[in-house]
């Protein structure tokens, strides 16, 4: 009996020591800066453009290189960095979710289909769901989508990597050697930085790193307002934009805005009508004359009383994007819309080719918008509603948001920064 007890204890002990290594607690950083990294590249590489960078990268901070200068490790590795999603929040929305098997909905041959899944892991941003120390509330914003990084100078590198499930360090030397960007940046302590890999000139394979030191942590914002800023991060329009059927934003962009309220009196299940909120009917906002601006002025928009978001005590609905049925139905929630147009060609007819106007309806459901394929649906004409509906205290409340709209070639990425979850809004 004794020997069996002993062997049981021995085996249990062996099992204990053979058990998995636990995650070490990440040591906290002194005087950190905060970084978030996006891959804005979206160009599929084709036979005539094989020198272009396929939009699938590895982000390396402070890389270690071999004798030939090829990176093989780094202090921070943000691997499998795919093209960013249309909508991103200030906290990681894909946290704890599977990052594999991205399966999009596309509109193909007249019906909506579930497209084939992507069979390798894709991260749409760094840190995303990586287990890192993140920023906390700064200036009332939840910034946990930004990772802590030691302040000071850092070498930043981006490598174009194969679209598969092999980790960066296990790639072959030839694969790790496809360096897209190699630069040095300085992060100041306590500052918030958004880093984006952008294309400067697709036809000539020129790329650059766009770094924005976020000013919103230093600015003051009113709780009962919605803020929207635009910046154009497109590179030179590729030649395909001149002769092809693809759409590209223009070099100079006029922006007009409206606030649309459903006319409950005359709308029914098959007919919908929206009235402009008084004073917000196709107003001119600004013209973006330059690209890669890091200073973002904000348009201030009203946050309506909470009652405007309910109908007969029920919360109103989002647009069934992009399945608009009946046509042009944008949901029953109040929503903002923007019309972007070519500032160099102000007389425009939206039905002619080339297209000179682009309508952006901020009416979609934030929960589903990233499920749609940007190529095979009209989803690029939408962003989520800028009035954020959140369940707090078992009741829906509507919060104002800070929104940065980043125009990149054929689409507008929305980065929504949220405020004031710790208190019930006063609207």
């Amino acid at each position: 009996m004794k020997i069996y007890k002993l062997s049981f204890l021995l085996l249990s002990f062996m099992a204990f020591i053979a058990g998995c290594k636990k995650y070490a607690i990440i040591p906290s950083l002194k005087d950190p800066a905060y970084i978030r990294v996006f891959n804005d590249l979206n160009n599929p590489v084709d036979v005539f453009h094989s020198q272009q960078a396929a939009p699938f990268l590895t982000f390396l901070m402070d890389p270690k290189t071999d004798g030939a200068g090829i990176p093989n490790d780094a202090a921070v590795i943000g691997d499998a960095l795919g093209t960013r999603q249309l909508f991103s929040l200030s906290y990681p929305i894909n946290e704890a979710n599977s990052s594999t098997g991205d399966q999009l909905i596309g509109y193909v041959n007249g019906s909506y289909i579930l497209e084939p899944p992507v069979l390798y892991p894709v991260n749409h941003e760094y840190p995303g769901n990586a287990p890192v120390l993140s920023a906390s509330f700064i200036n009332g914003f939840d910034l946990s989508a930004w990772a802590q990084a030691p302040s000071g100078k850092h070498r930043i590198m981006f490598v174009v990597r194969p679209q598969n499930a092999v980790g960066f360090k296990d790639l072959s030397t030839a694969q790790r050697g496809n360096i897209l960007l190699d630069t040095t940046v300085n992060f100041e302590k306590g500052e918030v930085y958004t880093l984006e890999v952008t294309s400067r000139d697709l036809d000539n394979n020129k790329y650059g790193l766009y770094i924005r030191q976020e000013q919103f942590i230093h600015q003051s914002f009113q709780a009962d307002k919605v803020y929207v800023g635009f910046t154009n991060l497109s590179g030179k329009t590729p030649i395909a934009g001149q002769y092809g059927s693809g759409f590209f934003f223009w070099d100079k962009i006029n922006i007009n805005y409206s606030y649309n309220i459903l006319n409950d009196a005359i709308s029914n299940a098959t007919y919908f009508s929206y009235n402009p909120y008084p004073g917000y009917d196709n107003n001119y906002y600004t013209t973006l004359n330059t690209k890669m601006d890091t200073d973002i002025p904000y348009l201030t928009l009203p946050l309506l009383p909470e009652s405007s978001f309910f109908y007969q005590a029920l919360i109103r609905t989002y647009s069934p994007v992009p399945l608009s049925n009946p046509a042009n139905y944008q949901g029953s929630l109040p929503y903002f819309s923007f019309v972007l147009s070519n500032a160099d060609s102000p007389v425009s007819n939206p039905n002619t080719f080339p297209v000179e106007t682009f309508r952006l309806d901020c009416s979609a459901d934030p929960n589903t918008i990233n499920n749609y394929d940007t190529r095979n649906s009209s989803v690029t004409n939408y962003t989520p509603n800028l009035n954020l509906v959140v369940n707090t205290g078992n009741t829906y409340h509507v919060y104002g948001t800070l929104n940065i709209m980043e125009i990149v070639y054929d689409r507008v990425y929305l980065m929504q920064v949220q405020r004031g979850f710790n208190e019930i809004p006063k609207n």
Partner: protein
Amino acid sequence: MKNSYLLIAGVLLLGMQAACVKEPEAISSQATGSRPLLTILKNNFSYSMFYTALERTGLDKTLEGKGPFTVLAPDNDAFTLSGINADSLSRIDTATLKKIISYHIIPASISYASIPQTIDFAYKSLAGQLVYFSVPIPGPQQTQYVGNQILHINGVTVNKLDIAASNGYIMDLSKVLNYPAASVKAYLESTPQYSYFVQALKQFGLFNMLDKPGPFVVLAPTNNDFIQNGIDQAAIANLDTLTYKKFLFSADILSPQLFFLSDFFDAPLQPTFPAYVTPDVLLLFTADRYNGVSYGVVPYNYIAIQANPFPPDYGDPYLYDATYAPIGFSDPDHLAVNGVVHGTSDLPVLPDSAKIHR
């Protein structure tokens, strides 16, 4: 009772070990096979012609070395497909054969997984000339199943990948690779079926640049294509360069470009812009798995033409060739040091359609 203690402990041990997160398998460029390259080639009858060539050129001695090497080995079927039989193989002079066979050997260990995910990634062969590897790039237009390991070398499909030896890998080729010509100019000049085309290029001042670094892709109509359209050498000599738009022949030369026809499947064109831009016209390409690759010369406003089913063009943007339809390739993928020549099956632009009307 005693047994159950043991059982519980054993299961516990197994369970905890199995629960561990496994490290992903590293891409090793080190070959893992047990037999040397030469033994595999020698003992496998389907490589008998390649092995004979290795022996005759003395390259078998090289492959006996430590390496590592990657051998791009055409099997006997591949020789047959390339029009080479045992007899004609024996008649190739040894120096030429050595050049060709050493072009099939890369002094590095290349496994499929270690190849960058792009088209025409260049490796240097033992002969010194570059060999181009293409693997499919995943994307919305990719129609090949990327889960299948697909590799094209100089446009030639690889039948079997990663045959591991102790001193390298063998990639089994479906055709023999052509040794690259000195330049696309030299290739065109030395190939009789392009003599009309060469004459036309010379006349329009486009020929001499073809020995520059490029790289160039030349879409070359054969003599037969000229004859079928009623154009003989005298007619070419009579073409007055001032009377014809430049693109009559300049649209046949794409630079800087380097691609093989299989690249249209490994890196498909986007439906929003399936064209190549030249200074005067677009070259509109279509590639499908059943009909292969074809192309036609179209004006810049081809989208507007396609959208208009009425006269004068009835929605057909192929305004310049005899059939008003895309043309195919009869003899593609001839590599030179500074580019690739693809023989076409018709004239893409008839002289009459490119005439300047005053």
